């Protein structure tokens, strides 16, 4: 019996949503069980820890398209009841209760809120939770709702039912993904920080939530009295909380720093102090943010212990702390912002009972060694914060990695997109514009003179038809509107409706059902721009007419164009045969796609000298599966000679010791690795007792030990030349320190910040084992580092004038990019490096941009089919290297195997008037997606369809007006502008 193809996703964390998106795109059905009563009722890591003013976690999902194709079934108030069967053939039973308001029928007219007789605070018992991208959610406060039914009666579409029955549903699924959401610590967990005991202590997530819909930070930090605080403390609470109460991921200290920077931007005069024990920004760009905060005048205070005592009456809080030197201090602030960690997942016990997954010693879901998401049970996967305190990038990567790992349990794809309606080419027909004005089920009739507007619209030049429609956002009204468009015989449409950002898909559907291309249609927002802005009918009429005039002028000049289609090669090229490259190659090949693997050394495996036994065995296993696979062609002592083309259509030449081989591929994985940084100074190379951590590991393996060992952290990391944290050195040093302690050695660690992260708290273990820690003044890299000197037969480490004798000095050296190789490859591939010298990813103005962008803009081909993985991407541990590779494979699996692909926005692509194009190439430079290329023979620009996301940069830059978007041409938009202003 073939395996089931559907996936059950329990919970809605970032990784769960990411996996859902990838599954839907790849063509698998999924059932999304949400414990909450609406899409983001359950707390999100993004909101709890990111001082961003948005969270688009749900908005990135094309929910309407997914639902229409049957890919997505989302269930609210859901609870998993039973799981039986085995991997590939699970039978699950769950209960759910639908939301009171059915989004698909709701027009968001707000009448239910108007009639609701129950006042709750400033609102009513039914209220709207505006969601970016997802439909606005209407939620009922059942605690206060009197079940009077007034809202049900007034709802024009019958979308609202106050009481919905609880249903029990059974389903057969191939795999189960556990993605339970982030849980914030309770007020009681944070009692040492004075939360809830006074007005001047607040959670960071609360600030984020407040700023979500206000004028950002300014109002979100205002004190209850209305006063704007001038002294702030931003406290990373897990650094000071009781053990086991909350867990920290490395985001937190970055969040604190980022919040501080934002505060300084908004209130430059304010005094902002960040309290933490160590700055643990180990990700891309995090060190730069730290330096930026110092430049902005943020004070960073490192403390050993800390508690907050808020004043109950005055808006002030006293922060009592002991410095690292053991000195007790107190600082008074007006507002203390708590950057909190994560509680262990509350659902773990229940999930364990239902599915058999096991918890680890901290209460998180246990995973198999060297896997990204596989639990102890075959076919059951866990992602994100359920599996441990993870940073945002890892949580997001988990999603696509889960897709990669679960492939082997899933059957054939079971979602096929429906056939697109056939569209009529209107070229040659006389222009007949139809204006369709939505009355929102009669609601707008009361507000403005719709029949009068129809009369005036009909009189506009070019308009042959105008009428009032009931709506265009519910199934029946979409159908009715399509009929009306068809019957009226128009070939251009102006739809005066509302909220196009959310409902554009519905309007497109209506127009396309009527056989017209959406390029021949324009949508107006009457609710946003007319009904809710104007108060007098005359003003409404004039504004409506102006908007209609502009739209009519635009659509008059619209043309029908068939969507472009291009081919996508289902083969992959992997550059680099280390852990990341081997993982990518085996996973792609396991899914039936041919892979070419290029390795510059004699043999596969990469830099195994830094690995332990188990890890070496794992790499050996990968090498044998690469060698055994029929789908993988492997070239050693080879390198990439030439690469041409673009995503889906790469042509490469590989230089091998014998003859050059030419290879075609759709995607390229860059897995070229990095190098260990070699220390300079510290008597390294001059005295055999000074060594690196890797050399120490070798010596320890040989049974050597010493009485006094000194370790110096951050050697060649977080300096002006190497402006990042190498991520691995702290954990590695701590592990070694603990081992040395066990053998009886005295170990002293000289550090700037201990950036240990992950499930095992090596820092605490090392402290418990009796390792001593001495901080050197780290922010001044010129003078801060300790000095290593010879002292008689031994060595001494001198830090801040104090001498510490040592038999061995171990330098924790970082990871540096292979600059020469990376630059050459970057040039060859046309793929940028970041300022750290690794292959770029979407980092920019927010410290978590990489993760968030991959969620909010999941444009798989945004990187032109090139995926940097492993150490070529950034310093990563062994497990994280596997994770980056599996994430990239998951993203690639979404696109490879689709032999033909349309542009992401179908007909809305850029195009070129070839007669006007002079081949100057400025648009090629400006295109963020590499979607344009100069045809060397014709000297004009050509478009690569599926790389074009129709941003329009080329339109604005073109000196000849040759470049245009299919729905944004100069002759259209200028005419529309003029008409708006008549």
């Amino acid at each position, binding site marked *: 019996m073939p395996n089931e193809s559907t996936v059950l996703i329990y919970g809605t964390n970032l990784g769960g949503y990411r996996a859902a998106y990838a599954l839907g795109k790849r063509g698998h059905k999924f059932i999304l069980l949400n414990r909450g009563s609406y899409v983001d009722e359950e707390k999100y890591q993004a909101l709890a820890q990111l001082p961003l003013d948005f969270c688009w976690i749900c908005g990135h999902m094309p929910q309407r398209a997914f639902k229409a194709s049957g890919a997505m079934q989302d269930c609210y108030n859901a609870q998993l009841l039973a799981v039986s069967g085995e991997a590939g053939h699970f039978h699950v039973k769950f209960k759910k209760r639908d939301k009171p308001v059915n989004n698909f029928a709701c027009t968001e007219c707000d009448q239910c809120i108007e009639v609701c007789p129950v006042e709750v605070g400033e609102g009513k018992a039914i209220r*709207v939770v*505006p969601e970016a991208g997802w439909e606005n959610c209407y939620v009922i406060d059942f605690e206060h709702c009197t079940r009077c039914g007034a809202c049900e009666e007034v709802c024009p579409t019958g979308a609202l039912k106050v009481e919905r029955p609880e249903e029990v549903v059974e389903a057969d699924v191939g795999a189960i993904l556990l993605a339970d959401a982030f849980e914030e610590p309770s007020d009681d967990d944070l009692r040492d920080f004075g939360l809830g005991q006074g007005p001047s202590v607040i959670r960071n997530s609360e600030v984020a939530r407040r700023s979500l*819909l206000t004028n950002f930070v300014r109002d979100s930090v205002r004190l209850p009295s209305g006063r704007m605080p001038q002294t702030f403390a931003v406290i990373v609470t897990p650094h000071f909380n009781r053990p086991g109460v909350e867990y920290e991921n490395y985001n937190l200290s970055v969040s604190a720093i980022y919040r501080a920077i934002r505060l300084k931007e908004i209130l430059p005069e304010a005094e902002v102090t960040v309290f933490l024990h160590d700055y643990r920004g180990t990700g891309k760009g995090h060190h730069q943010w730290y330096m930026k905060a110092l430049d902005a005048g943020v004070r960073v205070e490192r403390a050993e212990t800390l508690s907050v005592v808020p004043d109950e009456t005055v808006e002030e809080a006293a922060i009592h702390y002991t410095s690292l030197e053991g000195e007790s201090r107190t600082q008074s602030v007006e507002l203390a912002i708590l950057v909190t960690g994560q509680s262990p997942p509350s659902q773990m016990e229940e999930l364990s009972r239902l599915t058999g997954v096991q918890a680890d010693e901290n209460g998180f879901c246990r995973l198999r060694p060297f896997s990204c998401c596989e639990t102890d049970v075959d076919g059951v996967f866990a992602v994100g914060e359920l599996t441990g305190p993870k940073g945002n990038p890892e949580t997001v990567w988990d999603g696509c990695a889960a897709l990669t790992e679960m492939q082997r349990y899933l059957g054939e794809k079971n979602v096929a997109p429906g056939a697109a309606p056939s569209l009529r080419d209107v070229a040659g027909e006389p222009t007949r514009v139809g204006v369709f004005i939505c009355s929102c089920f009669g609601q707008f009739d009361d507000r403005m003179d719709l029949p009068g507007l129809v009369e005036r619209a009909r009189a506009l030049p070019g308009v042959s038809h105008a009428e009032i429609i009931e709506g265009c956002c519910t199934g029946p009204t979409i159908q009715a509107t399509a009929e009306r468009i068809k019957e009226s015989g128009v070939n251009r449409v102006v739809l005066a409706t509302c909220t196009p*950002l959310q409902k554009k898909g519905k309007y497109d559907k209506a127009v396309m059902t009527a056989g017209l291309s959406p390029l021949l249609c324009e949508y107006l927002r009457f609710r946003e721009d007319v009904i809710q802005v104007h108060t007098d009918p005359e003003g409404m009429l004039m504004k409506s007419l102006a908007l209609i005039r502009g739209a009519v002028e635009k659509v008059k000049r619209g043309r029908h164009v068939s969507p472009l289609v291009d081919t996508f090669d289902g083969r992959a090229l992997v550059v680099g045969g280390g852990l990341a490259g081997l993982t990518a190659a085996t996973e792609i090949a396991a899914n039936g796609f041919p892979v070419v693997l290029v390795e510059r050394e004699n043999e596969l495996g990469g830099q195994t000298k830094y690995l332990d036994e188990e890890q070496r065995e794992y790499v050996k296993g990968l090498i044998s599966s690469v060698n055994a696979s029929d789908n993988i062609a492997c070239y050693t002592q080879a390198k990439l000679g030439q690469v041409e083309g673009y995503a889906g259509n790469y042509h490469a030449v590989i230089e091998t010791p014998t003859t050059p081989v030419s290879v075609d591929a759709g995607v390229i994985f860059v897995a070229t690795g990095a190098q260990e940084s070699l220390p300079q100074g510290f008597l390294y190379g001059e005295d055999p007792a000074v060594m690196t951590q890797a050399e120490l590991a070798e010596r320890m393996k040989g049974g050597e030990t010493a009485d006094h060992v000194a370790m110096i952290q951050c050697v060649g990391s977080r300096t002006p030349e190497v402006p990042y944290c190498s991520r691995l050195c702290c954990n590695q040093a701590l592990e070694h320190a603990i081992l040395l302690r066990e053998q009886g050695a005295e170990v002293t660690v000289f550090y700037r910040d201990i950036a240990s992260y992950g499930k095992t708290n090596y820092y605490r273990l090392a402290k418990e084992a009796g390792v001593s820690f001495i901080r050197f003044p780290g922010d001044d890299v010129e003078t801060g580092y300790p000095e290593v000197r010879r002292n008689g037969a031994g060595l001494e480490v001198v830090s801040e004038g104090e001498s510490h004798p040592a038999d061995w000095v171990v330098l924790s050296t970082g990871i540096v990019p292979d600059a020469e190789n990376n630059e050459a490859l970057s040039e060859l591939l046309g793929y940028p490096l970041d300022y750290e010298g690794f292959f770029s990813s979407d980092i920019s103005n927010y410290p978590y941009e990489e993760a968030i962008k991959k969620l909010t*803009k999941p444009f798989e081909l945004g990187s032109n089919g090139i995926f940097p993985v492993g150490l070529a991407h950034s310093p990563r541990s062994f497990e994280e290297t596997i994770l980056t590779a599996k994430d990239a494979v998951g993203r690639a699996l979404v696109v490879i195997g689709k032999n033909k692909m349309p542009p992401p926005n179908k007909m809305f692509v850029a195009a070129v008037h070839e007669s006007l194009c002079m081949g100057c190439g400025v648009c090629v430079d400006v295109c*963020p997606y590499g979607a344009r290329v100069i045809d060397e023979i014709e000297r004009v620009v050509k478009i690569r369809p599926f790389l074009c996301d*129709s*941003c329009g940069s080329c339109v604005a830059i073109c000196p000849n007006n040759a470049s245009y978007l299919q729905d944004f041409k100069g002759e259209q*938009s*200028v005419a529309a502008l003029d008409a708006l202003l008549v």
Partner: protein
Amino acid sequence: MSEEREFVPKIVYFMCSWCGTGGAETAAAHHLRYPENVIPSRVNCTGALPAVHVIRPLIEGADGVVISGCHPGDCHYDDGNFRARRRVALVKSLLDTLGLEPERVWFRYVAHGEGRRFVDTAAEFNDHITRLGPNPLKTRSDT
């Protein structure tokens, strides 16, 4: 004086399809009003807005043009908002030559969720242009 008080400027508000229109939709969901005399116009990305489109309304009788795109780093297309910012700077330098005050054009960042900021931006700009007075091109006979 009385004439000045009655001056209601004509303002074109270009918003990008992502954060710009999103801001307006969030504002509407919260029943926040922007000034009636502001005429909205949607472009796909502020980076797609040619300089001509910014100058054209000013020649055609608008008193001011305000453009709002996504916050830095938040552009749907990565850096369209930065391109727009650069282009607006260029346009401002041209306005002087045309006999117009550069401050008749504003470029602002408004995020999708910032309904309040969207409305505030429109209102602030409206006040600003009202203080600045009508577009001088409207009363010039030589153009």
